[in-house]
């Protein structure tokens, strides 16, 4: 009888399950402002996904929205995983490859996981809101998003599946000899208490500098110089681990270590100058795949990468020595977007890497900007502001937050173990998913706000239109055609870094169907100041179409035929207009 009941239950589940996956009945729901109310793809944004999880979600989104998403592997990771990219736009309108593009990635540091979910949320939000929300519909008509949820899939999985601290691996999974003894990754962490996290080791010691907080046994208190200690003293012994290779040190050659965000080819420096650099610029397959993709897509005009933590909206330069690369005209654009971000992301600050964080070479955002002229931000997701929505909460608030809002889920209580070197010790502490990774119930909000910031950035990529075609009759069967091209957004078609080094080719403004006698750039229409282009005047080469500005091009043509004007800009897209 009991068995039959279970079978019945299972069968019921099997039948009901497919219904649960699909959209809900419209009578059962009410749209919350700003969120897709009945999405084709259901995703829980209060948990994290492994690399395979992200890949599967990406596939679901692509399968559900074939006219909006093309899913492509841009390369393989060191351990052979695909690096999945979702190219999202309205494929039924315009040439997808020629729309101004916004590149987003996450998780370059494997333990900094939120980027994966923010990317996924962004892909989901764009696809589920298309034709439901005018802003999103326009965005996908005019722009294409290249979204790569994780560019470190190997070590993302290691972080989640293997014992780690909240700050490891950070590296990728290629073994390196950190202590230069000729062996690779031979002395990593050891999960002695088996909780899946690398927490801390402490030992009772007559000479220790800590005591246990009598009011909260999770907490350790540092003994001050004037304190009178009447209770058991403790000493910290570092992260959980044993001396695996017998060299008298613990955890000195863990997985990795190199830093994928020191591997990019702008002012790259070797490990002795810039700790974490690997062999040479783009020596890692993951960064190489991104670089090759970006080089093959000159339409990328804006970019965003997601890290954690600290609540920062970062721009370059990464290194003090690279200060001269960021010039005033471009910094004005960074400032406008970054300051808007501070408003949209409470608790976040808009900062410059080299002076507000640390001075480093070989970072991703510097390569995007320095080498490609792409305005790029890195966001450090999550800040202690989020715990109680106020600043200056101090260290103790993490213990309170764990107890009051996470029901104690973030902490492994101290417990006694035998250590082969240290003897009787205690192990415990915060788990790897706390401190840097956003707690589950806050993740959707964090993803949404960061996505909205990238939308603001993407909105301000160049947006070109031909606003006026003026014709004036001249003597001798000639006609003067003056075309006005407008860019109504913040970014120029060429960043000033781009103009300085001719990174992207000039914009072409061409006339077809007319017999062109001469072509010129109008530099001052009122005083008729022009610059003639002697060679191939039908295809005018315009160095730049400035942000919130116009460019005028003039031709002298013979005859009275109809003609078509085409503006072709790598980062600004392609627009055409026919004469009346």
């Amino acid at each position, binding site marked *: 009888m009991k068995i039959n009941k279970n079978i019945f239950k299972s069968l019921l589940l099997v039948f009901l399950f497919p219904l649960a996956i699909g959209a809900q009945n419209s009578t059962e729901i009410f749209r919350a402002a700003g969120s897709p109310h009945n999405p084709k793809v259901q995703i829980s944004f209060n948990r994290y996904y492994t690399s395979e999880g992200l890949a599967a979600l990406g596939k679901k989104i692509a399968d559900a929205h074939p006219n909006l998403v093309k899913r492509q592997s841009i390369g393989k990771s060191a351990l052979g995983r695909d690096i999945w990219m979702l190219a999202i736009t309205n494929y039924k309108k315009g040439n997808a490859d020629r729309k101004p593009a916004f590149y987003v990635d996450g998780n370059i540091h494997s333990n900094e996981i939120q980027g994966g979910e923010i990317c996924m949320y962004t892909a989901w939000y764009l696809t589920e809101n298309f034709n439901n929300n005018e802003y999103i519909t326009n965005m996908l008509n005019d722009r294409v998003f290249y979204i790569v949820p994780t560019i470190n899939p190997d070590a993302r999985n290691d972080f989640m599946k293997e014992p780690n601290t909240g700050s490891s691996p950070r590296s990728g999974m290629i073994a390196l000899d950190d202590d230069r003894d000729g062996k690779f990754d031979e002395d990593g962490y050891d999960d002695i208490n088996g909780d899946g996290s690398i927490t801390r080791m402490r030992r009772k010691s007559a000479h220790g500098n800590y005591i246990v907080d009598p009011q909260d046994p999770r907490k350790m208190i540092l003994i001050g110089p004037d304190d009178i200690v009447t209770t058991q003293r403790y000493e910290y012994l570092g992260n959980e681990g044993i001396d695996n290779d017998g060299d008298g040190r613990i955890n000195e050659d863990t997985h990795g270590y190199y830093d994928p965000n020191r591997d990019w080819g702008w002012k790259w420096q070797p490990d002795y100058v810039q700790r974490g650099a690997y062999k040479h610029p783009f020596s890692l397959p993951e960064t190489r795949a991104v670089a090759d993709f970006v080089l093959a897509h000159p339409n990328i005009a804006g970019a965003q990468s997601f890290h954690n933590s600290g609540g920062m909206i970062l721009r370059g330069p990464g290194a003090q020595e690279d200060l001269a690369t960021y010039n005033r005209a471009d910094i004005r654009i960074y400032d406008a977007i970054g300051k808007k971000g501070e408003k949209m992301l409470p608790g976040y600050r808009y900062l410059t890497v080299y002076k507000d964080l640390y001075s480093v070479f070989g970072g991703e955002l510097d390569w995007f900007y320095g080498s490609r002229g792409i305005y790029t931000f890195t966001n450090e997701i999550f800040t202690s502001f989020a715990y109680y929505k106020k600043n200056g909460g101090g260290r103790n608030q993490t213990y309170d937050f764990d107890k009051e809002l996470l029901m104690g889920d973030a902490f492994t209580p101290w417990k006694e173990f035998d250590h082969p070197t240290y003897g009787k010790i205690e192990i415990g502490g915060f788990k790897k998913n706390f401190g840097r990774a956003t707690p589950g119930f806050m993740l959707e909000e964090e993803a949404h706000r960061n996505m909205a910031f990238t939308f603001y950035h993407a909105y301000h990529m160049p947006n070109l239109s031909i606003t006026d075609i003026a014709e004036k009759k001249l003597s001798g069967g000639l006609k003067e055609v003056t075309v006005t091209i407008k860019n109504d957004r913040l970014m120029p078609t060429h960043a000033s870094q781009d103009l300085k080094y001719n990174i992207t080719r000039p914009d072409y403004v061409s006339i077809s169907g007319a017999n062109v006698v001469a072509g010129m750039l109008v530099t001052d229409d009122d005083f008729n100041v022009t610059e003639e282009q002697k*060679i191939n005047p039908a295809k005018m080469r315009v160095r730049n179409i400035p942000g919130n500005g116009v460019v005028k091009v003039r031709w002298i043509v013979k005859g009275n035929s109809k003609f078509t004007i085409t503006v072709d800009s790598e980062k600004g897209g392609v627009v055409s207009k026919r004469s009346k």
Partner: protein
Amino acid sequence: MFYKKQAITLFSGLLFCFTTVQISAQTDYSNYSKFSQRLKTLQSQNASNSKLETLTTTVGGHKIWTLTLSKGDAKNKPAIAIVSGVDGMHILGPEMALQIAENILKNHADVLEKTTFYIFPNMSPNATENYFSALKHGNNGNAKSTDDDRDGEFNEDPFDDLNKDGIITFIRIEDPTGNYILHKDDNRILVKANKNKGEVGKYKFLTEGIDNDKDGNFNEDGKGGIVFNKNFSYKYPYFKPGAGEHPVSEKENRALLDYLYEQWNIFTIVTLGPENNLSTPLKYNAAGAKKRVVSSILKEDAALNKFISDKYNKITGTKDAPVSTGKGGDFFQWSYFHFGKLALSTPGWWVPKVKDADKKSAKNSSINYLNWAKQENINNAFVDWKPINHPNFPNQKVEVGGIPPYKMINPPYNMVADISKKHTDFILELAKIQPSIVLQNLTSEAVGNDITRISVDVHNQGLLPTHTEMGKKSRWLRKIKVALKLTKNQQIISGREITLVDSIDGDTSQKFSWLIKGKGNITIEAGTSHTGIDTATVKLK
């Protein structure tokens, strides 16, 4: 059995004769296919001491060869890497590398007992082919299509052979707006007019060609390609023609580095290319050495460079070399500043200074070359100026002429064997003084109560230090590991089981001692990949 052995000896003897004949039959530099064939022949004739591998195949379809010379396990001996063809116009480099390999295998194979050689004879095979093409022009890029002037158009303004002589030289145009004048000592040579000396420019001086795209620049975007020696990360010349879009973008650059990073036994890299720190050592600059981004050779390494440079000058008997320390993006500087190895480089040859009756030599290097060519009876050292009609200068006198490419950096082929022999001797000297860790003065004494004191000197018997000063900072040079191999029932009372030593200077040692409780034999191991590893066993008392 005896018969068989005899036959092998006879066969080897025949082979020896055959190769000797083949070497002497060589009368000129070899193009890619001939060079590859010579490499294969050399390898197959010395199969037990050499290995020929393909590092990668370039965009242009050429193989990048790696020739390894070693006896037994190559990876277990300190190694010298020789890299040439770093500059595609330096045809001498690949030829030297091949002849050095031949010399070692044929005449000095005993060196392979203790030293391994990794030889990368030609890193720019697409560029070196230009030397052998019907149209000789000084191009040193690979086959990748490049927009050298970054204007959005590719290869729209190449060189043009205006006088149809198969060589791209120069044009001079009589023009009052030009900045050049004829040299007073040799009117074939043009130099910039010096206004401060009252000189007035009379000529324009350009490379041979026309302004195909009418942008005012001549020959600024030909077939180009990416230059091996501009594509490395130290002082990389961003956005400059031939540099590529980012450092180490090219297959051959990347393959070489990825390979070198895996060869932990390399202690020195010898570049046969334009840079030269062997004739004149690099100079130490305290301010540059202290910066975060180090821009000067470090102090200890400058002294080491001088020590080796003195040996080089003595062994090769060369002098008067022009100073050349690297232009940025080059392999030589990478091998020191970014890889931390003992980095050595020489072009192998330069135009000797020719003294006139007053024992003075021409200050102008072109004139010195012409004087030398005359002395050596070298034909076609100069393409005499001849007038032509030039579409960009319709009403002006335009002439084509000048010193052909390649001439001033590559000697006539008949000089190469001697150059290669002298450089082989220098390379052999490097092997002789290589860092070499051995255990000396191993003693054991009873302390009582089943405890033995073991003492040993870890000695670098080579004259070279185990690590350059730069190498000490680099994670890509291993430390010297001194390790005890304990068996069960043996216990360390004092001392460490494993000690890592940063560096040991040439002919210097470091003392170690341990107290061990237990019985039986105990083994000590010291060294690392690029110093050799020595082991010794001692009985506990």
